[in-house]
């Protein structure tokens, strides 16, 4: 595919993603904050269903050599510290980088003006400090781009089966208690 086709297809996939997020309610401030307070588990249900559906499909496609996987590099240092900083922003803003785009489409002005400006500024700040400021943190507990089955030395499909079972159990517990 040439570059232009990729850009157009990406736009189409983005439209589908945005459509789905809105139908799930994940483009709304109140739904996202209610998730972070664990009063309403809509967002976690969407995410975990996407994970097990996607996981099963892409690992089958990988067996047939139709796709490659791109697990990200990381270390406990950057993922834990970056994750906590992200989490603070997630709660203070009430949107994440994907759902904020959906929130803009849904009509949220605070997302369009404040949130977007903030994310751009935060990303820019990181780019100014990269890579020097983060070398030590990146070396703390570095696991490269390992996957969980690689780290635990189990077969991919054992891990997938295990993950799907855990996710289903979580769903059953949530539904049984009316969450």
């Amino acid at each position: 595919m040439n570059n232009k086709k990729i850009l157009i297809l990406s736009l189409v996939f983005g439209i589908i993603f945005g459509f789905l997020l809105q139908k799930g309610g994940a483009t709304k401030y109140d739904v996202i904050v209610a998730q972070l307070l664990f009063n309403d588990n809509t967002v976690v249900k969407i995410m975990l269903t996407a994970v097990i559906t996607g996981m099963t499909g892409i690992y089958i496609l990988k067996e047939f050599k139709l796709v490659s996987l791109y697990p990200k590099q990381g270390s406990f240092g950057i993922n834990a510290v970056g994750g906590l900083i992200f989490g603070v922003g997630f709660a203070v803003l009430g949107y994440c980088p994907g759902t904020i785009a959906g929130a803009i489409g849904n009509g949220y002005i605070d997302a369009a003006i404040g949130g977007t400006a903030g994310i751009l500024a935060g990303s820019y700040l990181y780019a100014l400090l990269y890579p020097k400021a983060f070398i030590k943190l990146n070396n703390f507990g570095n696991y490269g781009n390992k996957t969980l089955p690689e780290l635990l030395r189990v077969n991919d499909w054992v891990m997938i089966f295990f993950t799907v079972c855990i996710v289903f159990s979580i769903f059953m517990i949530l539904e049984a208690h009316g969450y």
Partner: protein
Amino acid sequence: MMSYLTQIRWSPYAVGAGIGILSWFTFIFLKKPIGCSTAFARASGMIGKLFSRKTINGKQYFKEYPPVIDWEIMFVIGIVIGAFISAYISGDFNIITVPRLWAREFGDSFIFRIIISIIGGIFLGFGARLAGGCTSGHGISGAMQMAVSSWVSAIFFFIGGGVTAYLMFSL
């Protein structure tokens, strides 16, 4: 069929399955996992270039992630359009300046909400870059690939988010 498209809400399980299936197609056709936050980093470089081309060109980050329109920026623009279409056809599009839950706790000042949104956004953007992804890139796409980096990040997103939301809303 049309009645489904105009429903305000779908089951979160149906939405999640849809996103999972969409991921198969992004892996097959784009050879990319779904992600959103790098688009903001590239865009910040594009804006920076308007002020100082030299600063941006000299930064290592923008050598690795050039500030140009790439697939992910198109994807994020698509999200805005897709969410608008869904909201509009189901009569769920509303201009909201201060979200309801926020107003109940912190009042309905628009200026105050915008200032806090900017601060929250800075943490979010910086944290996403440090962790190497966001709720989509790590939380959905990375987790489905079973990447260790993504599961660790996603867990800490919700620890940080949960504790902060508790301090803001439940105390």
